[in-house]
């Protein structure tokens, strides 16, 4: 195989852009569900005790471990004239939008309910519903990045565009819309309670899902020939066990879970220590600039480092930056003009490496799909990418659950008080723990602790072998096999399914 030879491009500029915009619409909604705001929403807005929230996130996190691979298996068993992924992308946006509105509108719908049980039941049901439809769209979406073209450079471009656009357009939800709306509500600049703010933001998310996420199903095509043989549903599960590189990626992500608690403590740090959520917008925008630089330089960087090396670098650099940030702000972590520049610089640099990581991690899953096709003759995008989505969600749930459970341990408590109009308001209190004020622990869990524990994720990559020449050999061999497969299916007349 000649590595220098230019790849043929099958995915045009428009299709690439539409694929990216679809992810932007999806992420606009998803970002609201990630660690930073979910905990705040349940505890402070819905008035559910942290213990119950942590339990729910853990229980549904376990459900996710089953849910995603099942969805991946179903996708791999789907055979339609649109492909195995597109039907889901066409159908899912509408129910996903409805479940998003129901989820964020919960506190508004139940604002006069004092029954904690009713609130908890609603929390479980609405979250389960949203989670179901999100998985139904997310697994096929990322599987599409490997199925939309046989060309590796097309895949890199598609993933980079999707990650870039989702970082910017998708980031509007958590970087601009929510923090600004929360501040406007808290400072009584708008006459909305936090319940109304979250319900409004949920409705906006639903609009983005319908308007943008639908684009993937409408305009993106599948171009990789799928195997003709039928596989059983359980074969798809066995597939994960045989796929050693994929197992190593899963293990690495599991080990790196604790590093994600930074998001949970970040939200509490901005609201409880700096008393202004909008600061998070500013520093996230700086992080977005770093992300832009990362996306622009990813092709250049990939000339010097393979995916495995880049992944290791992406773990080491944030650990160093997180530690430096912690010590730079250790004495003045409650003074905004000291910590905001520190966090901004850290975010700028981390943003570059986050951008590399987001592209490389998705590409590596695509590599494991090719690897399994080479090893077993079966191509299981659905199952492989369900692992990517499962790991991402599991990290989010576990870290949010862990972070929320840690809140009382560091001296953070919430109490309820009834206002004269009969509505119930939640009030938070910061005390101290282990001889340090709660604010100090919020700073530590926001910076140094997640950064250093994230280094554990490097260990599995020591055993990861899908790199350099070996990967090139696999791809070359796959080229020959796919030609044979194309001959078998070309014309299609001889290949009839029942």
């Amino acid at each position, binding site marked *: 195989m000649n590595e220098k030879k230019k790849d*043929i491009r*099958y995915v*045009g500029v428009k299709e690439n852009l539409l694929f990216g915009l679809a992810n932007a619409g999806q992420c606009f909604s998803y970002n609201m569900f990630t660690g930073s705001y979910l905990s705040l929403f349940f505890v402070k807005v819905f008035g559910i005790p942290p213990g119950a929230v942590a339990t729910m996130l853990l229980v549904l996190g376990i459900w996710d471990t089953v849910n995603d691979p099942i969805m991946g298996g179903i996708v791999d068993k789907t055979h339609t004239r649109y492909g195995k992924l597109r039907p889901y992308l066409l159908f899912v946006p509408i129910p996903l939008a409805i479940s998003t509105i129901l989820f964020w509108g919960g506190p508004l719908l139940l604002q006069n309910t004092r029954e904690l049980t009713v609130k908890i039941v609603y929390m479980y049901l609405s979250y389960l519903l949203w989670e179901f439809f999100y998985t139904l769209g997310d697994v096929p979406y990322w599987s599409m990045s490997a199925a939309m073209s046989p060309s590796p450079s097309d895949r890199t471009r598609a993933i980079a565009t999707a990650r870039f656009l989702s970082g910017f357009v998708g980031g509007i939800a958590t970087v601009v819309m929510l923090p600004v709306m929360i501040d406007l509500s808290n400072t009584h600049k708008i006459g909305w309670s936090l319940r109304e703010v979250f319900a409004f933001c949920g409705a906006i998310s639903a609009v983005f899902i319908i308007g943008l996420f639908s684009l993937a199903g409408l305009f993106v095509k599948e171009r*990789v*020939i799928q195997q003709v043989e039928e596989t059983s549903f359980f074969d798809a599960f066995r597939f994960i066990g045989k796929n050693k590189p994929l197992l190593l990626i899963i293990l690495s992500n599991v080990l790196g879970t604790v590093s994600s608690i930074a998001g949970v403590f970040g939200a509490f740090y901005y609201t409880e220590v700096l008393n202004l959520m909008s600061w998070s917008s500013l520093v996230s925008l700086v992080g977005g600039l770093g992300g832009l630089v990362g996306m622009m330089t990813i092709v250049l960087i990939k000339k010097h480092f393979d995916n495995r090396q880049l992944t290791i670098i992406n773990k080491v650099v944030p650990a160093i930056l997180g530690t430096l940030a912690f010590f730079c702000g250790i004495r003045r972590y409650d003074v905004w003009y000291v910590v905001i520049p520190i966090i901004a610089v850290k975010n700028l640099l981390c943003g570059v490496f986050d951008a590399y990581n987001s592209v490389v991690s998705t590409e590596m899953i695509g590599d494991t799909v090719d690897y399994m096709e080479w090893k077993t003759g079966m191509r299981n995008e659905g199952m492989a990418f369900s692992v990517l989505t499962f790991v991402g969600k599991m990290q989010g749930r576990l870290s949010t659950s862990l972070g929320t459970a840690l809140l009382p341990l560091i001296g953070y408590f919430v109490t309820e008080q009834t206002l004269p109009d009969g509505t119930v308001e939640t009030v938070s209190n910061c005390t101290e723990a282990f001889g340090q004020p709660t604010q100090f622990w919020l700073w530590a869990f926001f910076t140094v602790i997640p950064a250093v524990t994230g280094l554990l994720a490097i260990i599995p990559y020591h055993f990861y072998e899908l790199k350099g020449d070996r990967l090139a050999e696999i791809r070359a061999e796959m080229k020959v096999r796919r030609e044979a497969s194309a001959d078998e299916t070309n014309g299609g007349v001889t290949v009839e399914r029942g």
Partner: protein
Amino acid sequence: MKEDKSCPNCGKKLSLFYLKQNCPACGVDLLHYDMEGRLERDAQKAAKEVEALWRVLRRADKARLIEKYYQKKGKPFPWEDADAAEPPSAQEQEDQCP
């Protein structure tokens, strides 16, 4: 979705909600029908779009920064690549590494 409206082999009109992989009239595999030909057409379309994009970028780049950069690096201009983009032949597709 335009190309999804009829069978590419027999021309039978298909409802958007007809999901089966084979044409109800001629039995052809609708997903994989003429895959190589479709890839070739997609490659031509993609090449045209890239060419159009570079044309827009050249027009927008009043200071000729792109041109200067590529001259300095001694590399061919990217629009020359795009201009020269011929539809890939079957041989080229064979040489391509998937």
